């Protein structure tokens, strides 16, 4: 059997890692480290180099330059692969083999003793809700079941590090939650996870640190919380009035740094949806969904729906939703409390009602969009 890993506290060490395809540089000299036991997120827009990086780290493709070590061994070496499990974005189990045989085959490749392999396969299939269908061919499985089988196959060798490439993409809410909860329990066992995802909620919820790659280069690496701070200490207050209000007057409120009209909010939301990612962004729930305003709901971290002192009188406006959308504004401020008080005063003085008010700090998605857009702009 192969020797276990060296113990320098690092699960992944990447230094100047580069991959070129002809004249195209897919990954451009990136460097980062992942600690053992860490849940590390690797984010980036489509074509940024995420999957190429994960494929180099798992030995599927070779590197063009730089160095990469996994669990202390050169990436792609037999020793590194022995300690790794891989969940690819697209299913690659043997469709003509049953779930059980897929697991046994993988266990054989990892040289797991057969009695241990059977025990572990049974446990995994039970945990993942596949035991009853263990003898069905993989081709008879639904997409969600195949994803769970991929996870079981990745874990059969009891790896120290698991590479997850979009593990929940295309799954329904139940399957996604199930997989996330399983990953969280495995994390408590001390396994290291390297996750690529388009889903910022997933990254913010599960990862202790994230790196953002754009056009082959790392543009940021920190905790999700710190990356939000990178965007600034600026909070956004989304407010919808029952009557038209002058944008200029709102700009005059002390502490307001910038005001966006409903059109600007909609344009920003559209850009966020099309430029950045496929998955749902954080907090796209609550009032204003699809209309562009008040984009964050109570599920978003650090966010609250604020009701002013006289909110009881702020019933839904007689105007239609279109009217409401036209009366929607986003105020940027570093003095959230002061601006809320000023808004209440403003509404009283101008005899307008605030139908909806949402306060949200910058999300990871905001940080992601800003950082990837900045890199593009600089280029």
């Amino acid at each position: 059997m192969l020797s276990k890993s060296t113990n320098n506290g690092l699960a992944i060490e990447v230094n100047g890692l580069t991959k070129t395809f002809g004249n195209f540089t897919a990954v451009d000299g990136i460097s980062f480290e992942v600690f053992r036991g860490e849940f590390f997120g690797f984010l980036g827009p489509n074509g940024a180099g995420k999957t190429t990086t994960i494929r180099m780290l798992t030995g599927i493709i070779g590197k063009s330059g730089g160095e990469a070590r996994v669990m202390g061994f050169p990436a792609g070496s037999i020793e590194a692969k022995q300690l790794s499990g891989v969940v690819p974005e697209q299913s690659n189990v043997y469709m003509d083999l049953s779930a059980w045989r897929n697991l046994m085959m993988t266990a054989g490749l990892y040289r797991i003793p057969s009695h241990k392999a059977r025990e572990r396969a049974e446990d995994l299939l039970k945990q993942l809700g596949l035991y009853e269908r263990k003898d069905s061919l993989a081709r008879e499985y639904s997409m969600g079941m195949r994803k769970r089988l991929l996870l079981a196959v990745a874990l059969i060798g009891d790896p120290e590090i698991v590479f997850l490439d979009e593990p929940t993409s295309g799954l329904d809410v139940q399957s996604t939650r199930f997989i996330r909860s399983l990953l969280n329990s495995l994390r408590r066992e001390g396994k290291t996870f390297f996750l690529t995802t388009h889903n910022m909620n997933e990254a913010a919820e599960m990862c202790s640190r994230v790196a953002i790659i754009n056009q082959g280069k790392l543009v940021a690496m920190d905790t999700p919380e710190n990356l939000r701070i990178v965007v600034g200490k600026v909070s956004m207050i989304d407010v919808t009035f029952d009557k038209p209000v002058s944008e200029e007057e709102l700009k005059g409120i002390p502490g307001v740094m910038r005001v966006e009209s409903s059109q600007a909010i909609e344009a920003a939301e559209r850009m966020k949806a099309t430029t950045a990612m496929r998955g749902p962004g954080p907090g796209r729930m609550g009032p204003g969904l699809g209309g562009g305003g008040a984009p964050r709901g109570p599920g978003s971290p650090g966010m609250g729906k604020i009701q002013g002192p006289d909110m009881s009188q702020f019933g839904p406006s007689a105007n239609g939703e279109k009217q409401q959308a036209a009366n929607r504004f986003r105020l940027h401020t570093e003095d959230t409390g002061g601006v809320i008080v000023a808004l209440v005063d403003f509404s009283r003085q101008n005899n307008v009602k605030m139908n909806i008010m949402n306060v949200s700090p910058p999300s990871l998605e905001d940080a992601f969009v800003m950082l990837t857009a900045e890199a593009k702009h600089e280029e």
Partner: protein
Amino acid sequence: MKNRVLDQIVRSLTLVKKDVLIYYSRGPVILMGILWPAIMFISFAFGRGMAIENLMPGLIGVSVFFTCSAISPVAFPFETAQRTLERLISSPVAIWTILFGDMLASAIVGIIISAVPILIAVGFGVTFTSPLALVLAIIIGSICFATMSLLLAVAPVSGPQYTQMLATLTKFPLMFISGVFIPLDRLPEAARAVSYISPLTYFTDIARYATGHSSYLPIYIDYLAIIAFTIMFWILAVKLHNMTLPKRV
């Protein structure tokens, strides 16, 4: 180093099992393995009136040759398309381990299928004067042909039709230049010179010897030639697959 190689060989046995389950235990594949020698026998023995004792050495050779080289050219592109090759590469196995597993599976099936023409031969009264020589030839010949088939799978394509075409274009001409149906001593000088580039030539020569005929070459030369071809095919297969693999995944 020795332990590492042994460790990988043990892992390759898992791939043998996988190949048998996925490719070789299919009804059509088994049927083809049985029918192919039977059809060849009927065509040449009854259709062309060839003497059975002259036909059988070549028929054993052709059966083993075609069986051993049937699956690898299909399996590699198929596994590329299914992305299962990617799964194997991310597992703790070397590329040569994957090739070795595939080769071993093909060779084992070739050895088993060789029983079909042998049984036909025995059924029609052919006597094997040197059965051990034949068994040894079948074992090393199967390994050689299976290794050759790895070369037919080198092209980094994801459609089996391309590699199958290449395999057909390679295998059929080899069948005709290898003294399968006309013994080497009766071949024209030029044809005989060409026949030396085919490992099937040496296998057939041993099979002829094993059925009571005299071999054209000393049989130790036949064995050595087959072993030399195997080593050459293996080195080339590992080198070329290492080169083309990045284009597959």
